[in-house]
């Protein structure tokens, strides 16, 4: 773990180039459908292999595992700067992992399959770029690059009111992004006028003196990120998008895209605006708790299991945001760990919903039931991931949630207590779902086949990861100590104010 890899080989650019290359191959050979599937699978496997190799590398003195920096648009001072710290490392490993699953669960895709896989890979470039970019314009570019593939994934391959959901998703995120763009430009000009150095580099802009503008610019950034997280009341696009999105789209949306919002807060919003950030923590915590409860209640009322899981995502992200808002080291590490765990368990659940739907033709709880008898393997996996999602000790989400709660209790016991009570709701809606799907009487109709070997092959890695994260999250946390310390120390007020009131 101590070897520091010098930036001789552009590993980070390779991570960005691989999915692009795969996408291009899919487009060029769009008439050979089977080859395209294998191209995509191979690409995602290679990306995961590279990211897994990175996982065993060590960081340099500044906390960077890998770093690249090149001039790009000289006139505006925009640079091509990529950097991987512990948080981005975990997020990229998660991305690499989930994208394999996304390709695997879409293997049956018949409608324009090459285009579908090309878009999944293009999306991967955008997501990895967001996790790596250290130049604000570069970051914005990747941030927007995630939108177009998702728009098409929802709009072309969705079910039901897909165009409505796709456009709603696009406009919501675009509105936030454009405000962020204005804030980025304003920050750039302020910094340039103060120092004469017109630059978009995150590192340089951290030292900007903003005076009265700071809350406004902070708000511009936060709106972009909070829409993506999403935090109540900016979340309404998410259930709609999930309801219609294809399985891989939901998996990427819940597993990865939501994380880019929290990641953006940690990497850009907090370090750039420490004062405004620490002042906003109580508000964030209130929003997080409101989201947790509101989404849990909404999830309980759903009859469509996919929509239910979508709301449960909002609720879980409420816990994540609470950890972020507590400004406490343990809670923050827990939040990041919970993001990884949530990505895997929720991703798995969305995948399973699509498997159930393909068998039964429905996602309505009344029309499901009795799967334990009819399709035992599928039911067992579904139960397993549902239990992991509700935070059963020993499975993934528990590890993250417990850290968030411990950390929050240290600074604000009341908030921690409220959040913990909220988890009872999580148990309620998830158990209700499990009961509705697995047990009870199955409705009449034709037989439902059990999982195929390919589906099992896609689910087993997820199950193993869920168990591993729940039992032994230590290796992941080891990567988080340093970046979390940096985030908290750079915003020094975070520590002295102790976060929450």
């Amino acid at each position, binding site marked *: 773990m101590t070897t520091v890899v010098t930036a001789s080989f552009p590993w980070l650019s390779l991570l960005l180039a691989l999915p692009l290359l795969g996408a291009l191959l899919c487009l060029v050979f769009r008439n050979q459908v089977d080859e395209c599937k294998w191209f995509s699978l191979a690409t995602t496997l290679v990306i995961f292999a590279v990211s897994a190799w990175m996982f065993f590398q060590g960081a340099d003195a500044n906390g960077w595992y890998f770093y690249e920096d090149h001039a790009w648009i000289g006139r505006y001072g925009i640079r091509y700067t990529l950097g991987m710290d512990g948080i981005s490392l975990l997020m990229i490993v998660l991305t690499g992992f989930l994208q394999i699953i996304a390709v695997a669960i879409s293997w049956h895709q018949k409608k324009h399959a090459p285009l579908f896989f090309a878009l999944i890979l293009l999306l991967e470039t955008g997501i990895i770029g967001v996790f790596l970019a250290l130049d604000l314009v570069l970051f914005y*570019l990747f941030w927007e*690059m995630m939108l177009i593939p998702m728009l098409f994934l929802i709009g072309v391959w969705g079910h039901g009111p897909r165009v409505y959901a796709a456009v709603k998703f696009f406009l919501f995120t*675009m509105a936030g992004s454009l405000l962020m763009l204005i804030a980025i430009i304003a920050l750039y000009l302020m910094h340039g006028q103060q120092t004469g150095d017109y630059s978009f580099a995150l590192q340089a802009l951290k030292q900007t003196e903003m005076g009265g503008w700071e809350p406004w610019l902070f708000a511009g950034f936060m709106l972009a990120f909070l829409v993506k997280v999403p935090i109540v009341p900016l979340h309404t696009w998410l259930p709609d998008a999930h309801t219609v999105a294809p399985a891989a789209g939901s998996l990427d949306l819940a597993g990865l895209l939501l994380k880019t919002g929290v990641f953006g807060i940690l990497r850009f919003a907090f370090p750039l605006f420490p004062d405004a950030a620490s002042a906003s923590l109580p508000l964030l915590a209130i929003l997080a708790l409101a989201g947790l409860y509101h989404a849990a209640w909404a999830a309980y009322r759903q009859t469509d299991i996919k929509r239910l899981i979508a709301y449960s995502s909002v609720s879980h992200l409420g816990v994540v945001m609470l950890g972020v808002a507590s400004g406490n080291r343990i809670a923050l590490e827990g939040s990041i760990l919970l993001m990884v765990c949530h990505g895997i368990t929720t991703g798995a659940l969305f995948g399973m919903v699509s498997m159930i739907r393909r068998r039964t033709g429905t996602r309505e709880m009344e029309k499901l039931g009795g799967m334990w008898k009819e399709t035992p393997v599928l039911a067992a996996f579904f139960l397993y991931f549902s239990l992991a999602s509700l935070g059963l000790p020993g499975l993934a989400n528990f590890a993250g949630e417990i850290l968030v709660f411990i950390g929050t209790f240290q600074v604000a016991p009341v908030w921690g207590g409220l959040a913990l009570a909220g988890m009872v709701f999580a148990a309620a809606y998830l158990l209700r779902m499990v009961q509705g799907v697995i047990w009870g009487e199955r409705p009449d109709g034709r037989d439902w086949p059990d999982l195929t070997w390919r589906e099992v092959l896609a689910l087993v890695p997820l199950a193993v990861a869920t168990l591993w994260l729940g039992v032994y999250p230590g290796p992941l946390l080891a990567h988080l100590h340093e970046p979390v310390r940096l985030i908290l120390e750079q915003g020094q007020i975070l520590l002295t104010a102790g976060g929450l009131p």
Partner: protein
Amino acid sequence: MSGLELYALLPQLILALGSTLLLMIGAWCPVRGRLMLIGAGLALIAALTAGACQPPVAEVAGMFSAGPYARFFTILWSLLAALVLLLSVRYGKERRFPGGEYTSLILFAAAGMSLLSSASSLIGLFLGLESFTIVLYILIAIDKQCAFGTEAGLKYLVMGIVATGLLTFGIALIYVATGSFHLPEAMVGLSTATGLRPLGLLGWALMLAAIGFKVSLAPFHLWTPDVYQGAPASVTALLSTGSKGAVFAAVLTALAAVPEPGFTELSPVIWVMAVLSLILGTFGALGQSNLKRMLAYSSVVHMGYLATALLAGGADGWTAIIFYLAVYSIATLGAFGVITSFAMQGQEPQDYADLAGLGYHHPRRSSALAFFLLSLAGIPPTAGFIGKFGIFSAAIRGDLWTLALLGIAASLISVYYYLRPIIVLFMADERSVCLHPGEIWEHSVLAFCFIGTLIFGLIPGPLLDLIQFVLP
């Protein structure tokens, strides 16, 4: 006019004389396709000449500059003419355009635009503007069988005459106030010290109105949708890009000559025009279900952005304007190019209903159209994003917060109306019938525009440096 001056004017001469030559050839041997190809070749030669031949004198006849700024735009408009001609080879045949006349008019329009962008005196400005406007009157109505075209031509003519009147009167007033047509002097004469400044400002206000007509800035934009819709798509491509860009280029030259502190009295007028363009253009575009009309209203919004950067001024604002003009022209040409290449027997697919599901019949051109629309919407990694970025950055630097925020709002709403055709292309439930597969020239023009939009989005540095170099 000395030989050296003629040599300095060589690119424009190639365009204008080539135009007359082709008119003659067309009269004796009407081979439509070949004439257009020759015309495109001539335009390319003009572009090459403008790039390669060092002008021996800086100014021609005290009317036109031959500096790098003028040459830059000459190259741009010559290339545009070449691309438009290549686009028209098949389309013109199917609509039975008179080959000689059409080609020669397009070349002449390019010469006019190039002269307008090079104008260094108000007379030069007038000459350049009128020479391509008159050409456009004919080009818009060149298909005599098409009622829409005739209507559009008439509308453009009436509006154009009003604009010409305003322009002439404005120039006359400025001449009265300063005693000069030549640009630095005519503007310097309007400095605060002179007593005739109000007269000159009135002249400028009239000129602004005329310019508003030409580039369709609100509230002078009403002709735009009808003319865009009625004109043949290839002509609309020229009208929507070159004719507006050249006017902006000339305005920049004129404003560059204005001594400090500039025309603070006129700023509110431009401000109001920018605000109105952003608002009216946006709301106009929202309701459209015809691609050409939507692009017409959206062009009003784009002109609003350009006016914003014009207000911001300074090297930043002007670099932003020229860069935006270039990438806007490429993307717009591409969008109209796709419409042209889809046309069957001269029937363009204009309504969204005609485009339903075409993404799967014609994946490459549909994706290209989507890409051009995304560039117009300003979404990275297209060139439109860098263009908008420059505009907003100049606006905020110039403390134009209202315009910047309004522009952001307009951009957000624009995403909606630009997405609609994309959605129809790729996400419609029903499928429209296959359209024309297009031919080699059309495909190469579209490929050129596509690559340009992508390259200037990813590597805008060289173009920005070039613009920085040519700025007056």
